[in-house]
Structures are given as structure tokens and as C-alpha cells.
């Protein structure tokens, strides 16, 4: 549809370790780089969205920090790593009202510099009284509980999960910005130290500082810009639980079972039409269950599906083509980086094997919490790169 909003600009701040920056510095740097990429100035912005920030009123801060007066669209809803895919959805709906033309969606973090904080039992949240007393302080244990159940029900193996890390590293080896670029084998993953069995160190994402941003514009505004049109043709979000897997409705499938079909239907596409997939990879398992839930393979068949390099540069479903949260960066809420990479692939910005040939349709799928929130965005290139 010619009425679909366009992602006209993307950008990242410095990634890895940014000891002299705050989260809002990283979010702001990414924002102005994304605006620059779009060919827009700050004064064109009339909408802001930010999540994952260490501020209780984050959109107020981002707007003030960037000097954005009287935006008509604001969103600071915190649903974890999928927040940015959801912002694309809500900003797109807001644009359809005709009041909003340029929305900055941003994220910033200094979680690597800050280190891991001391956990506290929140007396205000009853489930914390149980989950944390059991010794599950970190998301990895929660993801491990889901992984173990999937292995039990479907025969999924640790080696199959490892294949996801290996394919992702192959992509990272071609990305100069990626933190980990050395070749990786299945054996390397299997022999890495156990963290929360069955998940091992190399099944887990990085811990990085950094920020990312994108600029969503109305089709009218896009017509004024000199940019390859990457359109939002479908978007859907949902949530299932908060932070303890005993509350998850089905331990082996996520909200992507709903958001995938809804987003694909809006876009008028089938999974077979997807040229490049950017799938949240907090852990290898996150990718496996999401691919099943989105319909790239049958439920329970994810293990077989990812075997043989399916997700890698020579595979049938190029996935996490920047190296993902496993090898590129993971500043806490990775969802923004999935959208950034999807846009760059659809624009055809890369050389050689790093570029997925003739990529016209991409899916970016965010996951937040502990497999708790799901947001699927379908992006389509309009015209030639």
C-alpha cells in the first residue's frame, strides 16, 4: 500500500563499551545519526518513543534532551526488547491519523559499563517472592526452563541450538562492528561453560553498551526525501506473562504464534516470501522457538530446521545478518537493532556475501522479558535500492 509509513533513517551510537556516555547520550547520538541518514533535521520531528531507559518518564527526557517541542506522538511503553517493533506499530497507526509525519524511535544503554546490579526482592510484585526465592535471578535460568521443556517434548538437541550460534557468527565475521568475529563451531558452543543447563555461555547474548534509533516517516514526508523506501507493511504485538515461566501459558511457544500470522496477513505475504529474517536472539533458543512460532517450520521442528546452516550466509533463510545479539551487540533491549539491520539489507547497503541478494521482504521480530512479549514487523522495499 502506498499509505504505509516508511523507515527513512537508521543509526547506532558507538557500541561495546561507552564508559563516558550515559544511556540518554547513546540514545541521542543514535537519534541524530538516524535523522541524518534520513536527510532530516531535529526540528522536523513530531513524535518520540523510547523504552528500556533508566528514567521513569523516558519520552519526556528524550524529547527535552533532543529539543523536540510539542510532539504529537509519544510512547514510552516498556515491554522489553520488543518495544521498538511495537513502537513502529503504534507510530504507524498514529501516522494514519494524519497528525504525525516524523517519529524518532530510540534506545540507549550502558548496561555493560554499569555491570549487573544487586538483585532486590520487590515486595510490590508477588511473583518475585517466589521466583527469586527459588534462585532464578537472571533471564538465562528462565529461558533454560523453556529450552529444557522444548527438548523434552520435541527431541531438540543442544547441538541443534548450537547451530544457531554458529550461523550467526558467520554473519558477524563479515560485520566490522560485531564484537565477536572469530569462527565458531558446534563443538565450541557445546564445550563452552554451562551457565544454566541446558544453556551454555555461547548460547547466551553479549552484554554491551550502546544505542540505536530509527526514523519513521509518513508516505507524504517520504516523497520529499531522497531515500530508498522501506515500508512497514505489517506489524502486530502481544504479551503473555511477566518474569516467571510457571506463569507462561505454553512453555514451548510464544506470542509470536499470534503476531506472526497477523503481521503477515496485513502485509499480504507468506513466510516463503521472507528474504531476510532478523529474529531476537537473547539466547539461541529464542531464535528456535520464534522461527517455529512465526511459521517458518512446524511447531517442534525448529531443531531440524536450523541444521546445516539454514540461517547462515549460504542458507535458505538468512537470519540475523549483522551477527545478532549473540555476536554483534546486545545492549539489553536488542529489538531496535533488528529493525536497523532489516532496513540496511532491504536498501542493499552491503557488499559481497554480507548482502542478501535481491532482498525485498524482511521480518524483524522482537522478544521481550523472558519470552514474554512479542512484536512482529514486516518490511518491504519499494522500488530499486
Amino acid at each position: 500500500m502506498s499509505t504505509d509509513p516508511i523507515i527513512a533513517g537508521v543509526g547506532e551510537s558507538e557500541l561495546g563499551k561507552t564508559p563516558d556516555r550515559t544511556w540518554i547520550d547513546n540514545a541521542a547520538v543514535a537519534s541524530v545519526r538516524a535523522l541524518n541518514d534520513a536527510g532530516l533535521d531535529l526540528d522536523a520531528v513530531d513524535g518520540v518513543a523510547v523504552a528500556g531507559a533508566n528514567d521513569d518518564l523516558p519520552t519526556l527526557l528524550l524529547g527535552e534532551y533532543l529539543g523536540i517541542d510539542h510532539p504529537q506522538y509519544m510512547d514510552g511503553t516498556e515491554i522489553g526488547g520488543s518495544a521498538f517493533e511495537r513502537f513502529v506499530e503504534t507510530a504507524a497507526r498514529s501516522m494514519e491519523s494524519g497528525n504525525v509525519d516524523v517519529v524518532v524511535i530510540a534506545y540507549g544503554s550502558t548496561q555493560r559499563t554499569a555491570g549487573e546490579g544487586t538483585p532486590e526482592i520487590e515486595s510490590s510484585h508477588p511473583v518475585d517472592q517466589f521466583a527469586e526465592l527459588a534462585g532464578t535471578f537472571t533471564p538465562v535460568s528462565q529461558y533454560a526452563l523453556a529450552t529444557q521443556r522444548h527438548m523434552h517434548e520435541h527431541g531438540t538437541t543442544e547441538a541443534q541450538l548450537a547451530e544457531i550460534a554458529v550461523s550467526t557468527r558467520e554473519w558477524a565475521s563479515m560485520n566490522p562492528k560485531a564484537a565477536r568475529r572469530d569462527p565458531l563451531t558446534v563443538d565450541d558452543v557445546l564445550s563452552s561453560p554451562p551457565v544454566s543447563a541446558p544453556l551454555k555461555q555461547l548460547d547466551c547474548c553479549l552484554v554491551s553498551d550502546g544505542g540505536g534509533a530509527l526514523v519513521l516517516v509518513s508516505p507524504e514526508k517520504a516523497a520529499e526525501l531522497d531515500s530508498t523506501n522501506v515500508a512497514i507493511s505489517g506489524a502486530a504485538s502481544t504479551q503473555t506473562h511477566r518474569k516467571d515461566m510457571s506463569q507462561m501459558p505454553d512453555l514451548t511457544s510464544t506470542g509470536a504464534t499470534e503476531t506472526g500470522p497477523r503481521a503477515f496477513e496485513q502485509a499480504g505475504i507468506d513466510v516463503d516470501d521472507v528474504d531476510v529474517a532478523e529474529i531476537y536472539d537473547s539466547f539461541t533458543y529464542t531464535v528456535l522457538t520464534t522461527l517455529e512460532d512465526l511459521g517458518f517450520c512446524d511447531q517442534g521442528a525448529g531443531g531440524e530446521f536450523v541444521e546445516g546452516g539454514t540461517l547462515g550466509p549460504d542458507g535458505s533463510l538468512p537470519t540475523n545478518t549483522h551477527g545478532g545479539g549473540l555476536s554483534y551487540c546486545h545492549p539489553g533491549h536488542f529489538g531496535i537493532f533488528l529493525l536497523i539491520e532489516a532496513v540496511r539489507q532491504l536498501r542493499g547497503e552491503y557488499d559481497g556475501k554480507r548482502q542478501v541478494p535481491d532482498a525485498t521482504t524482511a521480518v524483524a521480530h522482537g522478544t521481550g522479558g523472558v519470552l514474554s512479549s512479542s512484536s512482529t514487523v514486516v518490511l518491504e522495499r519499494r522500488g530499486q535500492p
Partner: protein
Amino acid sequence: MTDGPIPVVDKCEEWDGPVPEPTGLTAEFWSETANGRFLVQQCPNCDHQQFYPRIVCTNCGREEPDWTDTSGDGEIYSFTICYTAREEAFQKLTPYVVAIVELEDGPQLTALVPADPDEITIGTPVEMRLWQVDDDAALPVFYPV
């Protein structure tokens, strides 16, 4: 099914991990754990059972659903072996097992399983003990039967 109260084990001296901080609603739940009772909520309106304790029935919306006893018997629905922990009390226990336990007469909950990881698999029958960790509360933990 176990008859009578669930065994309460005094761990007040040796436990240096987190202790429950009852809120208004969970105060009754935690105080009964010290008496060997593990309560879940059961709605008098629609029979729906739920855990953790909440002020409304998540099935029909009835306020303040009733409490009902559970036997504490169940089986392992899923588990993980934790090799690292942020809290010192749990660092000392590594590698330790955390499981989602499906109670035979109630819902699921996440709990510590103080057993050899080799003894645990999905489907392993387990029974509850309540570890008294301070004057007012005892933690549910599960041992293989």
C-alpha cells in the same frame, strides 16, 4: 497423596538467602507455610485455581478468591541446573536445580530442588518440604520421591 501437614524443616540458622517479604495479600499465605500448609487460591465462583496469590480470580474476576490446601505432591514439568548465581547464598549451592513443578492438586510453581542434578528429569515425582527461613515464613522446596 501426603496426609497431614507438609514437613517444615528449620533452616533459620543456615539460610542466608532472601526471605519472603509478605505484602497484604500474601501475608496469610506465608504465615500458613510455617504451619506446614501450602495454599493456593481456588475461586468459589468458577473453581479456577491460581498461584501466585492475587486479589482477583483471573478466570472470572471474583474478588478475594478462597484458599485451598495442596498436598505438596507433584512432578517436574521442567528444570534447569544453575551454574552461576548473583546471590551469595545461591553461589554456595551451585550447581543447583530450579524446577517448574506441576502440583497434582494445583497449579505450577517455580521452586528450588535441593537434590543431585542427576536425580532429576522431566516427569520425576517430587514432594514438597517447607524450609523455615524466618519466624513467619517457610519456602517451598521439592525433593524427588
